[in-house]
């Protein structure tokens, strides 16, 4: 009895510990960036509050352009991504293969953003795969054309690279949200009232689903505005996006550049807030217009063709993603791939073994960081969910917003501040610091993917086990965990993939000393031999996919 009480008090601390683990770095880090943005950072001689960092920032050459491309990317990407995702779901609803759609997008979701960007650069560059496939027979090019299709000054390549990842993410979120709605019955009613498939879905289902994918859409807004790794690979470089501008300042040899960089990071945070606020205002307008649109009763308006067009865009993005992943794998085994050959003219698979010594260290660091952060997050999340079940109290929507905090605050806005604190604590550059920084993102994703199946488990299993005399711990270990083994494994695979993909947290918490596959690939992406970059990016993409494969295989073995 005494032991059971002891267990319970430990468990009660779980939510608090969990929130502290992933929110403390964000809050403390934000403060640690805010102060230097106003000139205060004693370690490098900033002792007085002033607006000088902001004046420096505004005076940075190309600042206005940076601001404009940042806003363009941050507004266009979520709008287009949401439109395509909703169109695809409307068009695909009820088609037999749709049941497998979520499995089909898993490889794209598993692949880190930066790896997709690297692959995409291989595909769409003037010397990339698309031009090679069309040359010289269609284009007449014997040498790559001199146009900027990657790193173009307006950031079109950046938007496309983001869409390749964000559209499947939103589709998965919509498919998940559909489970909460009486889709089939409402679709049957709407169609019996004379609405075509796409019109019925857009008017009867989409508004119900939208509320549940709002937070993921806001996460896409924040990510698109503030992403660094993808922008480093395919974004414009001169002037770059605001996030890259801040990143350059934070990594400048001249420490005085930390001040305007902090101001840029804070500005980015404010931009995220402003764009989300504008989005919420647009939602209000859309609600009024949407009601009128629905009440007008048009049975077969533009919805059908629009949904089909969106689905076509989705197919194009999926094709881009697949060819991106394939092209980096091809480069990693090519010995000679001259322009405009469609395929390498000579192969060299053995270069993998020659690169092994260079790849080994970042590979093991990536694996270790991923496994440790996943396990720590798993223990915390299971403790929280178990506590929730025992207290018979479910976390409200406020908690959902808390979980999304790390996904809504730009990474660059708190990671510098967090690094300053780590330096002061003498923890910077350690693997432990990197694991913690990863936990900030691994925890919310693990929680979000595990909470629904965990809460959906029939409580009578646990109750009947308890009535047979099993202790709460035994119920957890012998009943709940085995019953939930599949969602547990999938949640771990998601968490592991999130860890593998982290670029900025690794760079800042690791103080540049901890190299993972992702940091190496991004660093090499600008300029290094495509065969070398291909090897890093391939491994970077393979590792999370292997995680999912292990989860699926293991999950099959448990039943």
């Amino acid at each position, binding site marked *: 009895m005494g032991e059971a009480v002891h267990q319970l008090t430990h468990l009660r601390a779980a939510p608090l510990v969990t929130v502290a683990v992933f929110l403390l770095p964000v809050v403390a880090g934000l403060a640690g960036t805010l102060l230097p943005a106003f000139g205060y950072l004693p370690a490098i001689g900033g002792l007085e509050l002033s607006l000088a960092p902001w004046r420096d920032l505004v005076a940075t050459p190309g600042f206005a352009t940076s601001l404009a491309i940042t806003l363009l990317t941050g507004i266009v990407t979520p709008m287009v991504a949401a439109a395509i995702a909703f169109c695809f779901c409307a068009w695909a609803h009820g088609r*037999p293969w749709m049941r497998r759609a979520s499995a089909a997008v898993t490889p794209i979701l598993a692949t880190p953003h930066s790896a997709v960007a690297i692959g995409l650069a291989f595909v769409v560059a003037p010397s990339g795969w698309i031009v090679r496939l069309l040359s010289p027979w269609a284009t007449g090019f014997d040498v790559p054309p001199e146009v900027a299709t990657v790193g173009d000054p307006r950031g079109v390549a950046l938007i496309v690279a983001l869409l390749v990842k964000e559209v499947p993410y939103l589709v998965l979120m919509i498919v998940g949200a559909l489970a909460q709605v009486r889709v089939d019955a409402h679709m*049957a009613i709407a169609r*019996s009232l004379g609405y075509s498939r796409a019109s019925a879905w857009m008017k009867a289902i989409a508004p*119900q689903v939208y509320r549940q994918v709002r937070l993921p859409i806001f996460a896409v807004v924040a990510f698109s505005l503030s992403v660094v790794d993808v922008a480093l690979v395919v974004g414009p470089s001169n002037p770059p996006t605001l996030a890259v501008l801040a990143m350059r300042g934070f990594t400048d040899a001249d420490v005085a550049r930390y001040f305007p960089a902090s101001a840029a990071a804070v500005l980015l945070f404010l931009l995220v807030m402003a764009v989300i606020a504008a989005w919420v205002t647009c939602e209000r307008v859309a609600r009024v217009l949407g*009601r009128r649109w629905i*009440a007008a*009763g*048009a049975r*077969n308006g533009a919805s059908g063709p629009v949904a089909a067009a969106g689905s076509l865009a989705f197919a194009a993005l999926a094709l881009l993603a697949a060819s991106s992943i394939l092209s980096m794998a091809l480069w990693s085994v090519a010995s000679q791939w001259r322009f405009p050959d469609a395929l390498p003219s000579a192969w060299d698979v053995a270069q993998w073994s020659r690169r092994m010594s260079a790849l080994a260290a970042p590979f093991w660091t990536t694996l270790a960081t991923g496994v440790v952060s996943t396990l720590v997050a798993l223990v915390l999340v299971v403790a929280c969910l178990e506590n929730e079940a025992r207290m018979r109290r479910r976390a409200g929507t406020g908690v959902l917003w808390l979980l999304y905090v790390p996904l809504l605050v730009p990474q660059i806005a708190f990671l510098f501040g967090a690094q300053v604190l780590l330096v002061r604590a003498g923890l910077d550059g350690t693997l432990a610091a990197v694991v913690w920084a990863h936990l900030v993102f691994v925890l919310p994703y693990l929680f979000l993917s595990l909470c629904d199946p965990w809460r959906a488990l029939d409580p009578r299993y646990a109750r009947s086990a308890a009535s047979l005399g099993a202790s709460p711990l035994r119920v957890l270990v012998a009943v709940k965990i085995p019953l939930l083994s599949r969602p547990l494994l999938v949640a771990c695979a998601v968490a592991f993939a999130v860890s593998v993909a982290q670029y900025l947290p690794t760079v800042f918490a690791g103080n540049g000393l901890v190299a993972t596959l992702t940091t190496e690939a991004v660093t090499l992406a600008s300029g290094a031999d495509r065969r070398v970059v291909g090897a890093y990016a391939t491994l970077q993409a393979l590792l999370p996919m292997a995680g999912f494969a292990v989860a699926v295989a293991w999950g099959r073995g448990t039943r």
Partner: protein
Amino acid sequence: MTPLVLEGVRITLAGHALVDALSLTVAPGQCVTLMGPSGCGKSTLLAYIAGTLDAAFAASGSVRIGERDLVQVPPEQRRLGILFQDDLLFPHMSVGGNLAFALASHVRSREARAARVDAALAEAGLAGFAARDPATLSGGQRARVALMRTLLSEPAALLLDEPFNKLDAALRGEFRSFVYAHAAERGLPMLLVTHDADDAPPRGRVIALGTG
């Protein structure tokens, strides 16, 4: 109005026949009741008629409204109104919004549409309910809105999938007569599936399903 005709309808699931060689004609304004225990394929038959049958089933046989064959027609062009045991009012629309959604689009102007919606509400004894959230209505009120919604779409026939099931005894009889009166007045053929013999209208034809 024209009759609803089924001819030689057969539905199988994994080789097992749920419905076999079913032929019947429902005259305008008349109700035919298909009785049977749950799982006998009643709702499956209605899904086949409505065109929303799950791909797991194999089905054949003709479904017609008068001379119009429906089998190859997509569900939205069949003009078959359906009532399920849940009212299935759309939670994101007001009561009036649900009705306006159903109202045929040949009623163009916003004023004319609003007038038609108000008239339908008055007919259901719910005048002034247009702006209400469906969640604030009682079960009986919601059921009546669901029927008015179906009728506003100007269907050629009515499919009733145990629509009285979830109502309590007092409301049940009242809503039954409400449905039959409105459908008969419009001359709609009605096909009802139920497992409760009391649901069938007086003097209506009753066919037992799934007994063999």
